[in-house]
């Protein structure tokens, strides 16, 4: 089984993987494609990965979480491909006997994912441009693609 998927993520399926009557506290994290004021008309993000390594790294992170919080069970799914704004790119679910373990393990998994799992994203914007996102979350380095709408505006500098 892979931790990567090209389909929408089912939170219910993940919950079913880790739930059990002895684990009364479950913490979940959902990362969704954002299109807020900090973004600039992001319609979707194209996620790509070094698939085999991403899968291996996700497995290693879950193993580490299991070592640190032996009573907790964690599940993760990272979606790859084009994901529309508002849809989930990642879901992490941790069930544990007590809530502190669930929160801590869930936070651990997402922080390690952000740090280590070889996944990249390209923002697809309303104006037709596509921009690689750098690790700080700011889209910076990219070969800018002038959009048709910009050309149509006659290059007056206002977009």
């Amino acid at each position, binding site marked *: 089984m892979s931790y990567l998927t090209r389909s929408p993520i089912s939170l219910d399926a993940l919950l079913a993987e880790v739930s059990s009557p002895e684990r009364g506290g479950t913490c979940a994290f959902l990362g969704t494609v954002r299109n807020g004021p900090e973004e600039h008309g992001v319609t979707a993000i194209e996620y790509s990965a*070094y698939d085999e390594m991403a899968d291996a790294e996700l497995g290693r992170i879950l193993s580490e979480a299991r070592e640190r919080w032996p009573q907790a069970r964690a599940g993760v799914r990272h979606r790859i491909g084009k994901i529309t704004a508002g849809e989930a790119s990642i879901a992490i679910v941790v069930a544990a006997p007590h809530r502190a373990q669930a929160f801590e393990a869930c936070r651990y998994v997402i922080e390690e994912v952000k740090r280590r799992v070889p*996944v990249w994203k*390209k923002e697809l914007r309303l104006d037709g441009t596509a921009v690689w996102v750098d690790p700080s979350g700011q889209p910076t380095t990219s070969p800018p693609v002038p959009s048709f709408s910009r050309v149509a505006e006659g290059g007056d500098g206002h977009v």
Partner: protein
Amino acid sequence: MQLGVASGTVRVQFFARYAEMVGRREAAVVVTLPATVGDVVRRVREELPGARGLPERPLTAVNLKHVKLDATVRDGDEVALLPPIAGG
């Protein structure tokens, strides 16, 4: 004991922005052994068209694991050059 110079071939993979820069996803690179990941990166940047734009010290992995540039490579290894990670 073997005399002379041994060489090895590693499979180098490029991803995301790096793949766009070099215009390809992978390349076979021959290095003189013993060699490090840093040697492979240097070789790539010198010989592959478009690879000059790659950072001198990119994030790298060998056989699906993050490694530092001083890690040793062996014949047949899979070496990956990874742009800054942006998953989640």
